[in-house]
């Protein structure tokens, strides 16, 4: 209980001795931004930009992810090491996906020529 009393004064002023306290303004502001971006990403579906659509959708998702990570997850105020650890995982996940994509495309001609020889039966008629 000693800690409760120790920090009661701090708490009344919206501060905490152990970690940064997010203000209500920031929390609600980020939430509203996230809602707006969700609306934008749903709306963007109705604009046909071809291959660009998926990149726009992923771009908006990344902005949303950044907002969540920086403010809801406190990375903007946190020790940088936690952020570095997290970013490292994203870098490795990106490496994983992109290298496997390159590899998968490498074999597409083989798959296509195999398909041409023995066309797959449409799954509906099995």
């Amino acid at each position: 209980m000693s800690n409760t009393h120790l920090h009661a004064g701090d708490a009344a002023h919206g501060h905490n001795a152990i970690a940064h306290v997010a203000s209500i303004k920031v929390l609600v502001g980020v939430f509203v931004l996230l809602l707006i971006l969700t609306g934008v990403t749903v709306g963007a579906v109705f604009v046909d930009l071809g291959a660009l659509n998926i990149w726009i959708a992923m771009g908006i998702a990344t902005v949303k992810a950044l907002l969540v990570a920086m403010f809801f997850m406190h990375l903007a105020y946190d020790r940088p090491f936690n952020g570095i650890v997290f970013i490292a995982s994203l870098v490795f996940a990106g490496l994983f996906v992109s290298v496997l994509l390159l590899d998968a495309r490498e074999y597409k001609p083989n798959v296509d020529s195999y398909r041409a020889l023995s066309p797959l039966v449409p799954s509906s008629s099995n």
Partner: protein
Amino acid sequence: MSTTPHSTAGVAAPLPHGGHGAAAQGSHGDQGHGHNPDLAHHFDTPVQQFDAGKLGIWTFLVTEVLFFSGLFCAYSIWRSLHPEAFMYAHHYLDTKLGATNTVVLLFSSLTAAWSVRCAQLNQKRGLVVCLALTLMCAFGFLGIKFVEYSHKLHDGIGWGESYQPHNPKLFTTLTPSGHYKGGKYVSEIAAERGLAVAGVPYADLDVPGKLAIANELRTEFLPEPPTVRTFFSIYYGMTGLHGVHVVGGILVYIWLLVRALRGRFHSGYFGPVDYAALYWHLVDLVWIYLFPMLYLIH
């Protein structure tokens, strides 16, 4: 019990313990050392304890990112090799339900972040309210997911070999950019034409009967791309793994709510509330990507 070299010295000389990165910031909480019930004996200060726990949960989140990345890989490869299956199959997903679930999850992230604030500021009633709201949103998300899953499975849209739709959507046109247009469900077409087997209308038929009508009608419409079943394997795999994480979050938040009701958290001890919120935000982050990847294909 002098298991740590600090525990005896701490009584006489409260500060500082050299060599710890957190020691400088930890000076506030150091009094009452050894008596603080919320400070594990192997930590010097509440700040050190909090930061260690935080690094621990971030490390766990890293393994979660890599865990999910396997499925993101499957998705990327399959979509790049078979875009037509995605252009076709997304017509089975309900964007409204997906968007609703996105909003539900975003709101639960807000309440989770707010619960940390409440705990940090000794707002015990606010903490209970925020935790309860987060829990309710988690249940709401699962409820909507259940509606989506059961609707699909009812129509025979399962994963892999259990993808045997007896009420498929059939299309009349394929645009040059690969969009399927003029879609109608077999149930609609059968109702319009009054299709029946041995006098039994489509709606009252059993599954094999419905499959027979569906397969007959298919020949009049565009053929279905051959790898749609794999789209649904990926769909169920990704949303299923995400759903399992939501269930995990529910268990954690029930535990937090019980402890919060007992008044266990306060400005000097709120680590578990913060760590659970970080986990919950990651579950939200994954959904932020899943929603456009699965529901917003065009």
